[in-house]
């Protein structure tokens, strides 16, 4: 489609599209909300979050999209992903085709075994959560730490504040630690 | 419109503790509300009423009335009130 308008101006690509994907219980919605809130609070950027639903509302949604832009976000849904986080093999298989050429792929290397590209970051989020952060529940937060390290989408301190503001009382330390683990582990790999 | 006709009781003395002979009749009947349903006439234990040509109650035996309340509490159209109670 290269007509009179698109041929001339194209659809502006001033947007960064993120998808967090996994299975029901992995807290992808929570992670997306926190990430959005952090980006929103950091200022200067617009964010839109959306998620998929099972039959009616039931069943944990397994996919959340975030669109980030310095301009007004006219179209709220992700079209071509700039960043895909896949916490399971199934999620990767399903959403990899939506990743832009050259887009960033982050996978849970403990659960995802077959990756169709060599350019990706693999961090064993779930194993790290269980073994180092003390609870499998925070694998998603570790992943957020990794995203923070691998992109310049949001500063770590603001992300930390956002996580703590939403985390249940009593889990602050665990979450803080999780963020750090993810951040550091990813930094190691940063190319 | 109120039924103020006094119709003489023919038979036995009423058991009523009220003496209606000096005052108004025992009851006020609002004939414009009355629908001639016959309930008061039929339910009065003292046969105080007779129906008029339209089926509406006439106090035929006023002195019988004991002010027992039955007619007015059962009147579905609030057409009966007492002059004494």
């Amino acid at each position: 489609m290269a007509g009179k308008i698109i041929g001339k101006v194209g659809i502006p690509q001033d947007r960064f599209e993120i998808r967090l994907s996994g299975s029901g219980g992995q807290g992808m919605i929570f992670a997306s909300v926190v990430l959005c809130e952090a980006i929103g609070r950091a200022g200067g950027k617009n964010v839109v979050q959306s998620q998929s639903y099972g039959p009616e509302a039931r069943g944990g949604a397994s996919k959340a999209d975030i669109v980030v832009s310095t301009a007004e976000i006219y179209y709220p849904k992700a079209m071509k992903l700039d960043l895909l986080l896949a916490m399971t093999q199934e999620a990767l298989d399903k959403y990899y085709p939506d990743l832009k050429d050259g887009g960033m792929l982050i996978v849970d290397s403990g659960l995802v075994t077959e990756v169709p590209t060599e350019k990706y970051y693999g961090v064993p989020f779930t194993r790290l959560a269980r073994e180092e952060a003390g609870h499998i529940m925070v694998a998603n937060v570790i992943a957020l730490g990794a995203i923070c390290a691998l992109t310049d989408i949001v500063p770590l301190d603001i992300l930390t504040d956002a996580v703590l503001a939403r985390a249940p009382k009593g889990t602050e330390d665990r979450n803080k630690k999780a963020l750090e683990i993810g951040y550091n582990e990813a930094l190691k790999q940063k190319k | 419109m109120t039924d103020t006709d006094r119709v003489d009781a023919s038979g036995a003395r009423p058991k009523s503790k009220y003496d209606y002979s000096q005052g108004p009749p025992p009851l006020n009947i609002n004939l414009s509300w009355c629908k001639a349903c016959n309930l008061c006439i039929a339910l009065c234990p003292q046969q105080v009423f007779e129906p008029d040509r339209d089926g509406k109650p006439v106090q035929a035996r006023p002195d019988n009335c004991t002010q027992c309340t039955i007619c007015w509490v059962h009147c579905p159209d609030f057409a009966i009130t007492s002059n004494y109670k």
Partner: protein
Amino acid sequence: MATVEKQKSDVMLNYLRPRKKFPSVWCPGCGNGIVMGAFIRAVDKLGYSKDDIAMVSGIGCTSRMPVYMDFNSLHTTHGRALAFATGVKFAQPDMKVVVITGDGDALAIGGNHFIHACRRNIDITTILINNYIYGMTGGQGSPTTPGGSYSTTTPYGNVEKHFEPCHLAIGAGASFVGRATVYHYPQLEKMIMQALEHKGFSLVEVISNCHTYFGRLNRQGDATAMLRFFKERSVTTARAKNMTAEELENKYVIGNLHEDNEKTEFCDEYQKVVDAHKA
């Protein structure tokens, strides 16, 4: 309950709606008027302020009642009175909310709101005038039409079973349930008073005469005949206790059938949440 002077026979005139045309639309002799009188006298005896009473009804002959009285009156859609009333009561918990309803209105189309109001035990008094038929629409069968009875939609005799409104209410959780008839006036008035004073959902089922349809189609005669029939067929709860199921067949057991004064009331319970969480 304020103490009031001895009630005059013309007390109901003080409660009729000004500027409304009388008499009512009801057929001559319709029991609805008797219930209305009992309700007014009960309210008067209890000394409630007119402003504090909301009367809610659905559609049906019975449901025309509220417009005749000088209270707040809400004549709603068929079967939905209790749902509207729930909105009124919850919005204005200090009001006395009374629903006037027919057997069709309450139990056919309105059955769901009926059982849910019972379940919630919301403090609404429901006066259900059971005339065993749809009066307003001209004599169709209702959920209380007895088996074998005639109506315009049961021309060969009703093949359906009927609800016992009181049993249904008890099964659904109502905390005050009683049955009266339009013949037994003093008991009716007293039961309405008790229901109004009860905290929680209260049901007064009033057996009443639709001689125009039920009476005519089932050869039960005119209003007088039907009231006499109610008299003959009624037994009090006290007497019923010593009667066999067989003896009780085709009898109206009148009196209080269920009373639970321990059950908490919906609006009260909600208020506790508000009190605990209000910022």
